[in-house]
């Protein structure tokens, strides 16, 4: 009990004292996951809206694939990106393996289906409701994409937060393609795994607390956005 208690106090001290290693790991985590979520949103939002708006052969298959890939296991995403980026892989010459860029790519692969699939659902609901009115305004489908995205903005913010939550909390993909290299590709989740194995509980606990706090903040944000939307938009 005593040692755990000590680990807990030391963890708090690391956080409060802004320990250099800890801050570096948290900063890299944020950098990687925020970049991934930004790129995934830029691709996934219009993609989801387009699938909602257009009827084309194979549309059902696209929706099934997007929905299925929402549950893509992070280690599988990591493995796929590893194979692509490894020396013998098709993109091996870029030399991206074991860099933060590789981690960003793996996380994009992980959260793009989530953002696209949920965007498709939300914008399709709006489209069902708006179709006649927008057609009456002679709005083209391309022009309807930003309209629907804007009118689903509160739902989509929680979708993006969900994507960020998944990206920052997963360990399998970044472990495989990043390699958990100290000071280069070590992020919160991979560091927790390593430090726990080494028995360095204070650092693992400190990182765990920050990660937990982050997830709590994301959920609070999603909740508040939902409440605000209900209050303001009816």
């Amino acid at each position, binding site marked *: 009990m005593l040692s755990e208690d000590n680990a807990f106090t030391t963890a708090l001290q690391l956080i409060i004292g802004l320990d250099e290693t800890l801050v570096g790991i948290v900063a890299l985590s944020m950098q990687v996951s925020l970049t991934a979520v930004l790129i995934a949103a830029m691709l996934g939002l219009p993609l989801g809206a387009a699938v909602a708006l257009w009827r084309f052969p194979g549309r059902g298959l696209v929706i099934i694939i997007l929905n299925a890939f929402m549950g893509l296991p992070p280690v599988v995403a990591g493995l796929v990106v590893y194979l692509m980026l490894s020396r013998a892989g098709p993109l091996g010459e870029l030399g991206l393996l074991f860099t933060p860029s590789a981690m960003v790519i793996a996380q994009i692969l992980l959260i793009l289906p989530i953002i696209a699939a949920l965007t498709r659902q939300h914008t399709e609901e709006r489209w069902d409701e*708006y179709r*006649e*009115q927008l*057609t009456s*305004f002679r709005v083209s489908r391309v*022009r309807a994409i930003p309209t629907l995205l804007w*009118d689903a903005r509160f739902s989509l913010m929680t979708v993006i937060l969900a994507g960020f939550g998944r990206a920052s909390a997963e360990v399998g993909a970044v472990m495989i393609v990043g390699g958990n290299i100290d000071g280069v590709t070590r992020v919160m989740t991979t560091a927790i795994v390593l430090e726990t194995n080494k028995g360095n509980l204070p650092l693992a606990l400190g990182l765990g607390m920050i990660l937990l706090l982050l997830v709590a903040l994301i959920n609070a944000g999603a909740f508040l956005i939902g409440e605000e939307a209900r209050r303001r*938009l*009816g």
Partner: protein
Amino acid sequence: MNDMNTAPTSATMLAMEGVAFTHRGHALLKDVSLSLSRHGNTIVMGPNGAGKSLLMRLLHGLLSPTHGRLRWHGQSGRPPRQAMVFQRPVMLRRSAIANVTYALAVQGTRWRDRRPQAWDALERFGLTEIAHRPARVLSGGEQQRLALARAWALRPEILFLDEPTSALDPAAIKAVEDAVIDFHHQGTRIVMNTHDLHQARRLADDIVFLCQGRVIEHNQADSFFTTPRTREAAAFVRGELVW
């Protein structure tokens, strides 16, 4: 043929020629030939399921006929500026004024003209106080007035109204009818659906009477109400059930 003026003339704005609409094997509209003059208020009447709303959607171009065609006269056959007000107003999730500026934007109005034009339209319909409220938390009557203001801002040459008052209280109905008269004075061609015989008497210049997907009678309003030419229309005017 009971049609008032089936043959298009120079005063014709819009003609339907043998239009039919079939959905999943059901013929919802059959062989409709109809010609609408350039001016006046046309009221479309008929029992539920007669195809009134469908006829409006075909005229407005929201749906395409499965047979026959629609022909606009003048302006080299191009459809004129038009707008439609629905039974349940569709409001975007933005402020009241943003709903109007959006419609102006997609119509191609210059950015700096949008707000003043939207404001004028809101002013005309007494909506300036709620201009910055979210459109979807407004009452049903306010939303319908906002839908009319939005249509007003678009300066349509022809305005379609699909049972615009069926979910409203008497004060709101009065506001909608006044708006229809304003549009009429502005020179906008009106085509409207209603179930309300009194409303039809107040507003109509001519009546299109639909029954089971066919135009049974197209007649001047006074003659339609006093001396209807068909048995179905006569029964409808007397308030009897028709089907």
